[in-house]
């Protein structure tokens, strides 16, 4: 079993088979996290560089954890403390890293397409850990794994993705991933936060009540204040009233609805605290599954001797 792709640049280029291989492998690997000794020697001697040009706690620590559990040697570079702060270009930084011959580079970058650029110029395997507003493939995979685990399937589920769609790479990867697996996706957000053309991928509504009517799962997106340059909505309070997930609103969804959020949450903005901490929330399961999915990606892209 191996993937049709050498790199993980996004969900869009993956086959359904690839996605299923990653989810199945993650299911098998998750057990290692419950062992007394959480370490297997599978990727001994492989070197992974985590190159993060944007702040990240969850994704970076999740990749680091996955690398350690599989015994890969890893090195994390955060740009605040690196030469990028001195004005070094991406390609120069990466050429220097490549001179140390890593087997894989995990890249988080503010520009869409940065990992694709690296894939053209590097020998190392590239994994996209989020590029601009484009894709965040491992997040979509861990969301799909969580849904499959809790519902037993993804096919046929109605999934509402609600919130700041304009700045969300998570939304885009999830649309591709969920649709490839056969789910029905509905998108919802204020008109100012829905990018033009998104309705060609999945149906869009501006009415949240309509979006979550009969939903099996609701994915709440973070309002990305740090990327906002203008006023996209009148006030945080009004946003919460119209697009926040509250207990009253939740009644419109199915009785066994699942609530997902990629984190970090803005409590009281896109999600009310009693929902985030309530019985339908699987937000912490997502974090555990995140490590398992990243282990699967590392194993499938780095395990094996390559073409022989």
């Amino acid at each position, binding site marked *: 079993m191996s993937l049709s792709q050498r790199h993980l640049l996004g969900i869009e280029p993956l086959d359904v088979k690839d996605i299923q291989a990653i989810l199945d492998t993650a299911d*098998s690997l998750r*057990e*290692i996290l419950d*062992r007394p000794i959480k370490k*297997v*020697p599978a*990727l001994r001697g492989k070197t992974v560089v985590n190159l993060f040009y944007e702040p990240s706690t969850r994704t970076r620590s999740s990749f680091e954890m996955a690398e350690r559990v*599989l015994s890969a040697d890893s090195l994390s570079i955060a740009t605040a403390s690196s030469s990028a702060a001195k004005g070094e270009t991406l390609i120069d930084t990466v050429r220097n890293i490549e001179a140390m011959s890593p087997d894989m580079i995990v890249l988080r970058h503010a520009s869409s397409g940065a990992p694709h650029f690296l894939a053209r110029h590097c020998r190392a395997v590239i994994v996209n850990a989020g590029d601009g507003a484009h894709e965040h493939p491992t997040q979509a995979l861990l969301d799909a794994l969580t849904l499959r685990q809790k519902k037993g399937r993804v096919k046929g589920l109605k999934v509402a993705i609600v919130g700041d769609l304009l700045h969300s790479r998570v939304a885009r990867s999830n649309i591709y991933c969920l649709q490839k697996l056969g789910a029905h996706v509905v998108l919802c957000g204020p008109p100012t936060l829905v990018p033009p053309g998104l309705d060609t991928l999945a149906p869009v509504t501006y009415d949240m009540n309509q979006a979550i009517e009969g939903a099996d799962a609701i994915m709440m997106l973070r309002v990305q204040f740090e990327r906002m340059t203008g006023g996209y909505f009148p006030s945080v309070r009004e946003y919460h009233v119209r697009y926040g997930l509250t207990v009253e609103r939740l009644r419109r969804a199915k009785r066994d609805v699942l609530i997902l959020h990629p984190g970090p949450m803005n409590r009281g903005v896109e999600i009310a605290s009693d929902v985030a901490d309530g019985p339908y929330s699987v937000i912490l399961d997502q974090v555990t599954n995140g490590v398992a999915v990243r282990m699967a990606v590392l194993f499938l892209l780095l395990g*094996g001797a*390559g073409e022989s």
Partner: protein
Amino acid sequence: MNPPQGFALRQVLMDSERLGRTLTRMAHEIVERHPDMDGVVLVGVRSRGFPLAQRLSQRMREASGVAPAVGALDITLYRDDLTTTVATQPILKGTDIPFTIDERTVILVDDVLYTGRTVRAALDELVDFGRPARIELAVLVDRGHRELPIRADYVGKTLTTARDENVQVMLQEEDGEDRVVLLEKTRKAAAAAKKKAPVSRGKKQR
């Protein structure tokens, strides 16, 4: 099930009846060595060691009144050739040991003992789960050609084989029938192998 590509059937070593009798004998040998069955657990190496362990457990209950717990071990992540010779990743089936092995007598079960490398990997994985009082090894077929200092404590059948032969164990649970066969390389495959150095495939060679 047909022989894998490049191999032809040479001899049937065990049919269903013979396989059953062999497992019964092995179960009795284990019970004989551990009469009170105190702290004995079985761990089968995936794929075929696991159903063999389940069958042994059932037969041990018939012999002693106690059915030992059975776990499954997937040694893929501990293979010594995972990042060097295996061309594509084998499918992971997962390890599942739903009990503690601390201070227990663990009987490791596999279908064929050959180079001993699978057992080495299994021992490494087992000690990551705890510290057993003792580990013993039970195999259905010992076909020789060890590359590591490893031996079995319970053996169903010892067999002298050539390196280019292959022992295939088929079980109802995995393959739909009970049969153990000795395979030999077809002439065509043998000639092709002589021409170029043998390439390791994703599957374990036996």
